[in-house]
């Protein structure tokens, strides 16, 4: 993809959001060339000492991770009773957090795989970032089903391990499907992320100034020399992995939704769940990417690579997916009324008007009303305003899972067994700790790994286009603001 020549460049050279159909908006801004891109991105991973802010953020995140560890230790030594669960509410924060984090992960895969297949080159600026987020989110997600069981020391029984008793897991259980779906998802995401990173790791290896860095990056670069054959194999495998990962974007959250849809709990047992969950996952995943990208591009001076146009595109996706889930909320109510099942009918009335109505209206406000602001281009292109909306969206999506899980379970069939749920401090600390784990991993990522896919960004630079337009040198000349300046 190349930048089509233009006659009317925007007044602000950093604003590439104009939708002039006669020219393609540039994907990289500033006077970027191969060297400057490498310099800019690699330098961030090569700094001897990261800025003080990194240390502070890392310290806080690590402390929260420690809190998570302490909570898990307490849980393991004492029992699941340290959480506020009961009968009938057998799941709450554990599965809410699981679904929340799995959902977060989806945007990364969507960006890296589906947008790749659809040749959306704008993805190159954010895909590394988003994929890393996916991996870390799935790590956080996988943690919760593992620790939520009563006898955690036997959790390996969910895997179909050959054994002398010839006892197998129950293949009819959606929880088992979860095990397969999430573990597959994690494996493919990790492979995809790592595979795409090999050329960049080789760059870091080549630029290494110390023996240790050279060895470590060298090990992970797996002997990449950038030969034609390497590139050819690389491109082919990348395409295959993208093709493999694409169905996972749809399947993983569909399977997660089966945990609910396949059961017979009123409020869970609805066929709309798979598409609704996938849309919700992409919705909150993009919100999380933006949540991370906005500060990162500013603090690390990546405005030229993660441009306003990237942010705007993501906001548009959030607007679209937000509308989908808004529709889903509506259609759930419609079907509950139209279906004539009194239990389902009550489950939904109870959501909106029952004891947990507050959580329902938080969810609606954050997920349906807040993204409507993205109709305004001004808001779409104001990174920090969008960032604020993304915070709302993530809160809203967490509450969506709360609403689905807790309100449905608390009042199912027999009124004699109705109950209520209140989290304990252990659950709140565990949730907080999972954010600590996520940010710890993310901060390590931005410290040691190139956070923008250098090799891929270079491919969308004008220079990479053999058929560069004659305007190109001129444009390059006008780009007076050097990347370095930021």
């Amino acid at each position, binding site marked *: 993809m190349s930048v089509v020549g233009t006659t009317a460049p925007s007044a602000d050279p950093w604003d590439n959001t104009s939708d002039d159909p006669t020219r393609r908006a540039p994907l990289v801004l500033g006077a970027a060339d191969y060297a400057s891109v490498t310099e800019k991105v690699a330098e961030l991973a090569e700094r001897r000492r990261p800025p003080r802010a990194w240390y502070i953020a890392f310290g806080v995140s690590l402390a929260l991770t420690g809190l998570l560890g302490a909570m898990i230790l307490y849980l393991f030594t004492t029992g699941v009773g340290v959480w506020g669960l009961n*009968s009938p509410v057998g799941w709450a924060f554990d599965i809410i957090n699981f679904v929340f984090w799995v959902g977060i992960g989806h945007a990364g895969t969507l960006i890296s795989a589906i947008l790749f297949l659809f040749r959306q080159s704008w993805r190159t600026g954010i895909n590394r970032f988003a994929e890393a987020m996916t991996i870390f989110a799935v790590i956080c997600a996988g943690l919760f089903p593992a620790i939520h*069981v009563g006898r955690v020391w036997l959790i390996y029984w969910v895997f179909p391990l050959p054994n002398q008793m010839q006892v197998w897991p129950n293949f009819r259980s959606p929880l088992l499907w979860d095990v397969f779906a999430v573990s597959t998802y994690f494996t493919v995401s990790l492979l995809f992320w790592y595979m795409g990173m090999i050329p960049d790791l080789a760059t870091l290896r080549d630029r290494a100034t110390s023996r240790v860095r050279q060895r470590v990056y060298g090990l992970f670069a797996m002997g990449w020399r950038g030969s034609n054959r390497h590139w050819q194999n690389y491109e082919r495998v990348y395409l295959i992995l993208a093709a493999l990962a694409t169905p996972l974007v749809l399947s993983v959250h569909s399977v997660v939704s089966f945990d609910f849809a396949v059961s017979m709990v009123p409020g869970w047992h609805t066929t709309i769940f798979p598409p609704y969950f996938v849309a919700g996952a992409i919705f909150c995943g993009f919100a999380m990417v933006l949540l991370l990208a906005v500060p990162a591009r500013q603090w690390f001076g990546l405005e030229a690579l993660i441009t306003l146009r990237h942010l705007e595109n993501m906001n548009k996706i959030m607007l679209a997916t937000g509308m989908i889930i808004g529709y889903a909320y509506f259609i759930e109510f419609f079907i509950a009324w139209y279906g004539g099942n009194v239990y389902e009918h009550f489950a939904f009335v109870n959501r909106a008007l029952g004891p947990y109505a507050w959580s329902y209206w938080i969810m609606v406000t954050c997920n349906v009303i807040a993204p409507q602001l993205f109709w305004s281009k001004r808001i779409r292109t104001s990174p920090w305003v969008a960032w604020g909306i993304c915070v709302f969206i993530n809160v809203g999506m967490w509450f969506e899972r709360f609403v689905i899980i807790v309100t449905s379970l608390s009042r199912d069939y027999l*009124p004699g067994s109705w109950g209520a749920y209140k989290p304990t401090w252990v659950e709140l600390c565990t949730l907080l700790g999972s954010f600590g784990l996520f940010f710890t991993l993310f901060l390590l990522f931005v410290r040691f790994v190139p956070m923008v896919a250098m090799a891929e960004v270079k491919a969308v630079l004008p220079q990479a286009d053999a058929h560069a337009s004659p305007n190109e040198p001129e444009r390059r000349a006008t780009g007076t603001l050097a990347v370095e300046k930021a």
Partner: protein
Amino acid sequence: MSSLDPTTDSGRPRSFWRSLDERADTPEFRQFVEREFPAWADEMLEPASRRRFLQLMGASMALAGMTACRWPAEPIVPFAHRPAGFVPGEPLHYATALELAGAAVGLLVTSYDGRPIKVEGNPDHAYGLGGTLAWHQAALLDLYDPDRSQHVAQREAGPASWDDFVAFARPHFDALRAVRGSRLAVLADASSSPSRADMRARFTAAFPDARWYEYEPLSRDNAREGARLAFGRPQRTHVALDRAETILSLDEDFLLHHPAAVRYARDFVLGRDPDGATFSRLWVVETSPSLTGSVADRRIAIPNRAIQAFATCVLAKLVHEAGADLPAALDGLGPVLDAARRHPMYGRVDADLVLDLAGKAGRTVVLAGPRLPAETHALVHALNATLGNVGRTVTYTAEPDPDRPSHAQAIRDLARDMGRNFVDTLVLVGGNPVYDAPADLGFGDLLARVKTSIRLGAYEDETSRVCTWHVPRAHIFESWGDARDFGGTVCLIQPLIEPLHGGRTDLDLLAQLLGEAPFAAYEIVRRTFARGAAEPDPRAWHEALRVGVVAGTAWPEAGPTIGTAGWSKRLRAALDAPAYPEPGSYELVFGPDASVIDGRFANNGWLQELADPLTKLTWDNAVIVAPATAAEMGVRHGDVVRVTRSGTSVELPVFVLPGQAPRTVGATLGYGRTRAGRVGSGAGFDVYPLRVGDDTAWADVRVEPTGRTYRLATTQDHFAIDTLGAQERAERAVTLVREVELEAWRHDPQHAMPGEHAVAPVELWKPHEYPDERWGMAIDLNACTGCGACVVACQAENNIPIVGKAEVARGREMHWIRIDRYFAGAPDAPEIVHQPVTCHHCENAPCEQVCPVGATVHDAEGLNVMVYNRCIGTRYCNNNCPYKVRRFNWFNNQKHQSDLEVMIYNPDVTVRSRGVMEKCTFCLQRIQSVRIQARNEQVRGENGRAAGRLIRDGEIVPACAQACPTRAIDFGDLNDPESRVHRKHASPRAYRMLAEFNVRPRTAYLARVRNRGGHPEGAA
């Protein structure tokens, strides 16, 4: 070496030694002791200090008890069901009895290798018929209660031994005998035991000047006195509820708080067979909602003080309006009945009630509860006489011990004597008067002033604390004894186990005080049994022990003549009293608690965690307030209120319960114990301080909010419900708990059932086949009274843990069977339904499909079984269970069990670990044991070869079904068309809860039949 040989050492008495070094007492050994046991060096090397010695003795006595757990030590212990030889590990069943409220219910106790683990009803006992109530089941837990007192104690010196006590008691009582027992008194709990009566007679003979008092805080003395008024002598009333067409219960909770409750519940249900000829209509007039009130067809809620006037008006209406003939002996009541016409209650007497009672001579029953004054009881005798019931549905037997003062009088007399320092030696046999005597007596202070007080008690409780001597009382399952049931038949009590803590029975103690020792309970019971003969007839004795009852000892029916002398005037005077409390005050009605009764079971965790049948409250009591009254007071559920009666106030939380009479509040006794033990101390609120003077039934109180709130732990409606939820609950309840009107049922049973027509379930694939047995359950809601016996029976049978108040409040109670209670109708006149819910063993079990590890599966007979070993605890199964009958072990609930407590476990049932889901198994272990027995009983098969016989219908009885006093639960083979359960499944009354989801439950409910009659929307 010879000096080290103990056998040759003749210089010292024979002693045991642990090592040669110890024996030689070498310096090396002394050094070793000091190094290894520095803290104990003194005791081990020097003569033991007295204190240390007592501690060690106490500990070793506890251990000595353990060694006795292996085998019952009494020489003669015949079996109720005799196995072929004694097989260790094979459970044995012994007949014994438990006496509550002065009447016994026969029990069969299952014992494993000398370890009693389960109580069941004795089917050979006429007042149990195999059923029990929750208390009988839970009595077992007390046996293994580590808080039970474990040694004799003296107030100053602390722990002592029985020998110390004997050394004190022998000279002390010898001296008392010399002065004819003057300044000696005995305060005993009520007992129907013939042996105890005999010992009392001997005691009185030996100490002629001694006083003997009996006291129970909740007694039926008003009924005795009422009969004395009516007949000139105390008579006990017996009713035939199975033959009655109309039952009018005036504040009588005959299904729960009655000495014959087990039998009466059964009779009541027998009289309500929807397929039978008669189906009784139950009218209940009461103040606080009771279990009996909850199953009433028509219930009238009025203040307790107005019930007598109501009853007078019933009789007046019968005579004046329905043409009933007042017997000549009752002519004295004429003026009263005339006056009653002008009483405001006259209008409250429903015309339907009069119609139901009139003209049915011998087919109605009127009962009066123990709270009502003696005149009301006399009036009820008059009512039954007028209705022609006497000799038919109502019979009388002479009360034993007719001349004893009432309990209220006895405790008052004793307190007076103590206050005048007339009592130097007081023997307290059981009871807990410091806690439960009328508060104005100041019994605790008086008792502390008595020079010598000897307390025989199971716990070192409030009373023992102020006594000079405490002697541990043997548990009923450790005791020899006897007791009479409500009809007078003697039940033998035999021990299942040696006393774990060296406890003594009341007979042992009295024998000791009389100087008869070592003559003890066993010999005393045999002596009583022999009735004057030197030795009991061995065959009769063995037979009585085996069956548990002594045939031919029932009291003969008495034919007392009724009169009105002395009480008709009082009845007339009572009519002038106001029917409602003065404005600003409320009538507080005291009642026995469904769990702890009067406080005696306060330390019993099973009972504390058993939900009250109506409030579903656990671990607490509360002041029961009707919704309208609560609004009037300006209080809400859970608010703490100050209840004041003439200067004394008690603060306790409000429980808003529909059905409490207007202008009244209710409270149960037995809570707020301070020295009950680790379980019961501090649970609930003590309302005894408000129970002063002679008004033990009710008191006028003021109720003020304190502004504080209190967390009440209920097993249902764990949290206050919103309007939306309440509305939905009311709508659902009628489809979940179905009822039919008797009229509709009689008209056309096939179409009487409400509810939708079931859609034929679609099977996507071929269902599993169960060619052999297909177990199923049927629960007859028409028979269930909601008493809760099944809940405790299940807990005992299946090793179900107690989780405590905080966990119940979180919704984590572990009961495998629960009784859901729903209200219908207006909050001021609610109709109440009870529905036992346990695992339905669905054919299409939703739990099985979702378990990731397959820990819950169907077995070959279609039972939904839980494989504890395989469970990893995802809780998905419970989320997906529409009946919410699964229970999760949130913690290691068995962790803090002492060696003593674990003895209660049923060895046939796995004790579940932390993190495992559990639920009802249909008592799989019982199915299995019957199956093994059937297979071993060889019969000739079809092909001439020997094979095991088939399991007979009714042979397998799950614990819940066994305990049920009304046999509401049936279990059996659905493949057998002749089985009871199959027939019940086929009944037109049968329905399956939530059947529309095609889970195909194995449990069918049989709809409850209402017999409201008249206008069906209920009265009052």
